[in-house]
């Protein structure tokens, strides 16, 4: 029974994650939007979903399908900012987003630096 449930969860994760990426690809093909703009659009969508309070319900169903795409990054930023604003006060809004996403961003910056030191860029 639990195995069946796991398979269902993974199928939903695959479907929602894939669907989000397919929508983004459709935007790339159909409009002249650059990837950077599309990333910002999805990021702000995540921030809006979180601040309206819908994100948690979507996350319960879709799990990594919505948290691995950049939507999840936006939602984490907004969640941190909202929580810290409500517990620390006005100043917390400025720090909360960074505090919550610091693990991922910190790892990305440090690893990028190390990889740059170790590997040389290859010519395409």
């Amino acid at each position: 029974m639990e195995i069946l449930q796991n398979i269902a969860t993974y199928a939903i994760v695959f479907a929602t994650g894939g669907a989000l990426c397919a929508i983004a690809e459709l935007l790339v093909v159909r409009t002249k939007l650059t990837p950077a703009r599309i990333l910002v659009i999805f990021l702000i969508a995540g921030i809006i979903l979180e601040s309206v309070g819908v994100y948690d319900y979507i996350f319960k169903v879709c799990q990594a399908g919505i948290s691995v795409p950049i939507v999840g990054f936006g939602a984490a930023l907004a969640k941190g900012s909202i929580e810290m604003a409500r517990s620390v006060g006005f100043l917390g809004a400025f720090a909360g987003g960074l505090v919550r996403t610091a693990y991922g961003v910190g790892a990305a910056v440090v690893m990028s630096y190390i990889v740059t030191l170790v590997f040389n860029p290859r010519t395409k």
Partner: protein
Amino acid sequence: MSQNTNAVKARNERYNKYVETVTPKTSIPKALFHSFAVGGLTCVIGQGIGDIVKLISPTMPNDMVSNITSMILVTVAILFTGLGFFDVIARQGGAGSFLPITGFANAMASASMEFKTEGLIFGTSVKLFSVVGPVVVNGIVWSTVAGLINLLILGMK
């Protein structure tokens, strides 16, 4: 005068036609399917990492599990970028490779590697955020706005 503008128009038309012939024709359904598959697979891997972390340490709070998951995904993606595997995925995956957090990491690492030749301070350190900058800046600005609005509406806990 009118002859001149006509000539310019004709030249523009010829040029547009030439651009159309040169632009590679991508079949939309195929591109959509590829991004669906690559994006979905990335999310499934993320879910798998989270489940394994939970198996190893069942008492860990959910926030920490998702932090570790994103750290592992980011690290693997950056290693793939360094080894040159990520280009292979990105060529096929389209949006499926840049929308997940792995694409964010790849954009950061490839920008920093590309400008290694200009030095570690003025090359790598300056260009590290040149692609992901819009995401980071907009994320911080709008999440702060979201936090302030929520504080105004809901008040302190």
